[in-house]
């Protein structure tokens, strides 16, 4: 197959165009959030919220409200419940989170089997990007676009909050707003991604791009840019690959992202495995250049006669004092 055909052929189909738009949108917004999750150590939080949306989707269906609303509410409830339980017990956050989200996910599964819906469980779990309608696309564009806008506008505050919350508080930033804001943005991102990659795979989109970019740069703004580029390339490649091999699209995108990460993990110029190996295996300095032990100082004449004997140590450890004084001499 020629390379042009690889890309042009799928484009002939409307559903492929929509799928591409969808996966690009989702890729971009997840990539931006992923930078924060990776830095804040919130990877599991992403996983937790995404799993926890399941009961929300089912309940929303029963109530006849938009599924996105139910998903968002459930996701946020998971985050808040985790925070509450952690604050009120001695159990660590990741432990609490594990219990809360698996509980909610289990509840969702039970509900799902009890309720007649027109939804396919597989599509909720793994996404169905080839089946998105124009309305889906618009909905995602609004949620993802809005989220993206807010995160990018407030990216510096959010970064400071992740880096040094105490300082953020000290300079008068509303730390609670930033904390819960980030949780809300994360929930929105997940909600906007469900149609494309499903609640199981979205966590990959929420980690891989940020992790990849983290290995490539020491500047946050560049990290954001790289993450978005990586995620969008993966979205395009993954979507097309899935068309040609007739595979699940979400899975293909995630696979390409993982592949990118692997490449960078090995070959990153500064933080890659090969570079680290190279540094480690570098021959050490030639023996001659290693400084030998310092020359002993010429004895200081008159050090022991004179005033030293008059040192009165009211602290009560005369021997120590002498040592200290002599030690400093030696180190001079």
């Amino acid at each position, binding site marked *: 197959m020629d390379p042009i055909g690889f890309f042009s052929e799928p484009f002939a189909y409307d559903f492929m165009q929509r799928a591409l738009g969808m996966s690009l949108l989702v890729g971009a917004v997840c990539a931006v959030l992923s930078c924060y999750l990776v*830095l804040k150590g919130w990877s599991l939080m992403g996983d937790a919220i995404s799993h926890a949306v399941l009961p929300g989707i089912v309940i929303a269906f029963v109530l006849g409200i938009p599924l996105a609303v139910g998903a968002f509410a459930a996701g946020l409830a998971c985050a808040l419940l985790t925070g509450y339980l952690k604050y009120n017990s001695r159990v660590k956050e990741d432990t609490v989170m594990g219990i809360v989200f698996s509980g909610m996910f289990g509840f969702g599964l039970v509900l799902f089997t009890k309720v007649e819906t027109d939804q396919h469980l597989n599509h909720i779990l793994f996404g169905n990007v080839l089946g998105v309608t124009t309305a889906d696309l618009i909905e995602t564009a609004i949620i993802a676009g809005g989220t993206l806008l807010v995160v990018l*506008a407030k990216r*510096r*505050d959010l*970064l*400071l909050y*992740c*880096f*040094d919350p*105490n*300082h953020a*508080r*000290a*300079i*008068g*930033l*509303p730390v609670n707003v930033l904390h819960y804001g980030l949780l809300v943005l994360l929930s929105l991102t997940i909600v906007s991604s469900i149609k494309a990659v499903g609640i199981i795979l979205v966590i990959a989109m929420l980690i891989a791009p940020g992790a990849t970019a*983290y290995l490539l*740069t*020491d*500047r*946050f703004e560049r*990290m954001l840019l790289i993450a978005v580029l990586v995620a969008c390339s993966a979205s395009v490649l993954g979507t097309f690959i899935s068309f040609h091999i007739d595979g699940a699209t979400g899975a293909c995108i995630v696979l390409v992202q993982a592949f990118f990460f692997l490449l960078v993990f090995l070959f990153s110029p500064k933080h890659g495995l090969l570079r680290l190996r190279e540094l480690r295996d570098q021959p050490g300095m030639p023996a001659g250049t290693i400084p030998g032990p310092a020359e002993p100082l010429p004895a*200081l*004449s*008159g*050090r022991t*006669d*004179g*005033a*030293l*004997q*008059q*040192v*009165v*140590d*009211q*602290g*009560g450890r005369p021997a120590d*004092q002498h040592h*200290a*004084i002599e030690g*400093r001499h030696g180190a001079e």
Partner: protein
Amino acid sequence: MMNRLDTVKRGEAVARPASIAVNDLTVTYPNGFTAVRDASFELGPGSICALVGVNGSGKSTVFKAIMGFVTPTAGQVRLCGLPVEKAISQNIVAYVPQSEDVDWNFPVLVEDVVMMGRYGHMNFLRIPSKKDRLKVDEALERVNMSAYRKRQIGELSGGQKKRVFLARALAQEGRIILLDEPFTGIDVTTETAIINLLRDLREAGHLMLVSTHNLGSVPDFCDQVVLLNRTVLAAGPTASTFTQENLERTFGGVLRNFELGGHALHEDDDARRINVITDDERPLVFYGVKSRKKKNAKKQDAKKKTAKNQDADQ
């Protein structure tokens, strides 16, 4: 988020003279331990105050209470006449904790970190203005870290890291500046540079509270002292408060105290003695060294001296 009302309020706070009022402050930690009980002191604008006490005397606890990071069990703190929360939200307090608890692998450079001190002065989008950049350059210059500005924050030595966070607080330009042991692990050159900067800020009406174990430098640059041992033992102007008697009360038997004098020190019959007092640092004292400088001058002005001062002299 910052509407006009906010800006007006902020202007008002800046106009207020800097002050710290701690009234009967009691802090009990969740484990039931009362670190500070009934502590009171008041400080006004244009002042550098030393906070002195042994390990565990509650210095850091006082700082945390002033910042609102721990809630007082009793008593209250007011900054510029405002309750803590309000004062903090108006960005009038800069604080450098004793040790920074951050992820050193974060993808931020030294200059990015210092710029974080300026956020409170920036617009909603935190786009740095020329002035912000200038202040960052200045702060980095002050702590001798300009050469490292493009380093990733983890690629620094312990003392260099500390200097970066000091620079961040300086760049913040709070009217009140709290420094929790800023000079531990800092070399003498930088210490002198920072002390000079603090003096400049004092001229400009700022109020600084600095905890330190470096007793020798206290009379050198602090005009006020608060002596702490789980409560305030003494507070007031350095000259009248930072006395040997008060220090002995504050430190109990922990102080190291050297007395030098007589013919071992000098040839004449001057009866006065040199008294070297030190807290946790061991003074470097040279004996019988051939005089390099005016021995007499030294004898007269040096009542209390520590290692660092002596280092600087030589």
